[in-house]
């Protein structure tokens, strides 16, 4: 579980930090940086597990364009990230907390092409602060396709195990920017097990989740729960089947309603398919990062979906103390424009994004800022928070659909 992200120099972020509880909704107006946070998380997790080239291809924008642009049009040359993670308890070891710090640079390595290079990185134990897994600093330590985390030396078996577990956590970061065309498509038999960020390959993903979590008494595993929740959230649907077609060598979804069976995904509503993809992501292990769940979804159902998501995540103390038979560890991060969020999500699970102006050597640059919401009669200023909390006056404008500062 990722418990904190720090970003500097990536897209709209300058010295940005956000604590991530197991369930968090990022709200704010257009162009406030909500999607950029998701891109940042995807970028750094992919760089750690699959390498920089894969990381660039997973996010919006070209390699140089990922570096923050200043107000005068120039770009910074460094991007710094820190991720703090909670590794759950395992049979032989208690839970532990780690911090991965990594700095990327725009550079031209000797004999190579220009591009993003990892300059330095280290892993620090937050449970025992003296324990550091360092790397050589000040030289180009990782190139092109190699996963950043693979560069940590494996001198100590214990260190290697920690790096392996952190990689596993980061492999399970899944972001969703759903696209109607992808949601409706069939999967190929033998194709990828997981859906991509647009929800392409949803049928195979559901098949994979069923196989992974099935037991004797629950042959569909978590997909049984997904079916139940889909019926509860989308009243027009009474069931769906994952149809494996050997002749066409594909896997399709067929929906049923009380009055109609065998309804192909092509004829299902956008809202139904979106809801199904989101439910699938929420029932998998790891961190699900979901953009704008309200699109195509009736407000009351969004309310129910967010309520359900809160119930599905693993609380931090549960992750830290659960035993060998622990269920899947789940974390859910959403972005949203919807005021419904304010009615259904507790304030401590909401972060508000907007823009501010920083001044660097006489140059004004617009960057994202994040603020927590003020609790009822709570303080406006809180130690450790860079900006004052969002007051009811500001929330009133967000609720009314009035953008600041208009």
């Amino acid at each position, binding site marked *: 579980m990722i418990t904190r992200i720090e970003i500097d120099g990536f897209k709209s972020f300058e010295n940005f930090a956000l604590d991530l509880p197991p369930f968090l909704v990022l709200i704010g107006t257009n162009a406030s940086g909500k999607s950029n946070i998701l891109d940042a998380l995807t970028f750094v997790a992919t760089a750690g597990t699959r390498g920089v080239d894969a990381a660039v291809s997973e996010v919006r924008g070209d390699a140089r364009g990922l570096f923050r642009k200043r107000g005068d049009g120039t770009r910074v040359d460094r991007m710094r990230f820190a991720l703090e993670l909670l590794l759950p308890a395992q049979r032989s070891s208690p839970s532990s907390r780690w911090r991965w710090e990594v700095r990327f640079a725009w550079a031209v390595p000797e004999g190579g092409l220009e591009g993003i290079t990892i300059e330095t990185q280290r892993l620090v134990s937050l449970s025992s602060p003296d324990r550091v897994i360092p790397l050589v600093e000040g030289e180009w330590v990782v190139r092109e396709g190699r996963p950043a985390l693979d560069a940590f030396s494996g001198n100590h078996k214990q260190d290697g195990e920690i790096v392996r577990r952190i990689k596993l956590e980061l492999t399970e970061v899944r972001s969703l920017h759903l696209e109607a065309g992808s949601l409706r498509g069939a999967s190929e038999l033998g194709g990828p097990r997981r859906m991509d960020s647009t929800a392409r390959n949803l049928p195979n993903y559901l098949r994979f989740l069923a196989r992974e979590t099935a037991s004797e008494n629950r042959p569909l595993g978590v997909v049984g729960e997904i079916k139940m929740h889909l019926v509860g959230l989308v009243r027009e649907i009474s069931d769906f089947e994952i149809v494996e077609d050997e002749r066409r060598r594909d896997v399709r979804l067929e929906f049923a309603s009380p009055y109609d069976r065998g309804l192909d995904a092509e004829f299902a509503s956008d809202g139904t398919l979106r809801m199904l993809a989101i439910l699938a992501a929420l029932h998998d292990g790891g961190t699900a990062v979901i953009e704008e769940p309200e699109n195509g979804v009736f407000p009351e159902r969004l309310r129910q979906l967010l309520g359900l998501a809160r119930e599905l995540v693993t609380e931090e103390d549960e992750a830290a103390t659960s035993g060998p038979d622990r269920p899947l560890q789940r974390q859910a991060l959403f972005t949203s424009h919807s005021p419904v969020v304010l009615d259904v999500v507790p304030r401590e699970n909401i972060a508000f994004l907007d*823009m*501010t102006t920083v*001044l660097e050597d006489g140059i004004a640059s617009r960057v994202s800022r994040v603020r927590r919401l003020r609790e009822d009669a709570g303080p*406006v200023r809180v130690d450790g928070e*860079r*900006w004052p909390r969002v*007051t*009811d006056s500001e929330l009133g404008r967000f609720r009314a659909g009035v953008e*600041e*500062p208009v």
Partner: protein
Amino acid sequence: MWSLSRVLIREGPSDDWFLPILLRRALEELVVEFFPACREVQEVRPLPEAGNQHPETMIKTLKEERGTFDVVLYHHDGAPPAKSQLVLGRIRQAYSASDLGEPLVAVVPMRETEAWLLADRTALVRALNLRRLNREPVSGSEVESCPDPKVVIDALLRDEAGLNPKKKGALRNFYLSVAENAGIAELRKVPAFQQWWNDMIEALEGLGYQHG
């Protein structure tokens, strides 16, 4: 780090289309020029619930927002002068008598805020995506002698850009676009704007900002 945050007490919704953006941009230029130690200029946040006529309501709202701002910007149109000065005096008196310690800086165009929209003709051309203005409206320091800037804006939209100024959407987006584009140097030629600029410098000095 020095970070500047302000709230705006304003007259009506159309002020929100123009003043928060313009004043934030002006503040960015002001601190770069005079107070380089300042590292951040936050959004100017309007407080519609404060009204701008009744000191009690305004002060009550500001107390609820205490801790979120360093400076209070108080906007009132300058016309008619007798009424404007009366209201401003009443607000200043009540504010001084309250226990709010943040400086209150008045934002008072000579007649109406709309006069400031006209100050930079280049911004008008850009906002309306024209090659040129066929009929030059007043601009620069002359805008404050314009008897009715709203009429000039209506004519500008209708005659130069073929837009209907009675349509709120077009009017709003025109105001916003000018707010994003207007040259602050041009606005400083307008005496009332320069007065606000000077008052703002004084307020920041009072907050301990050092000249660079």
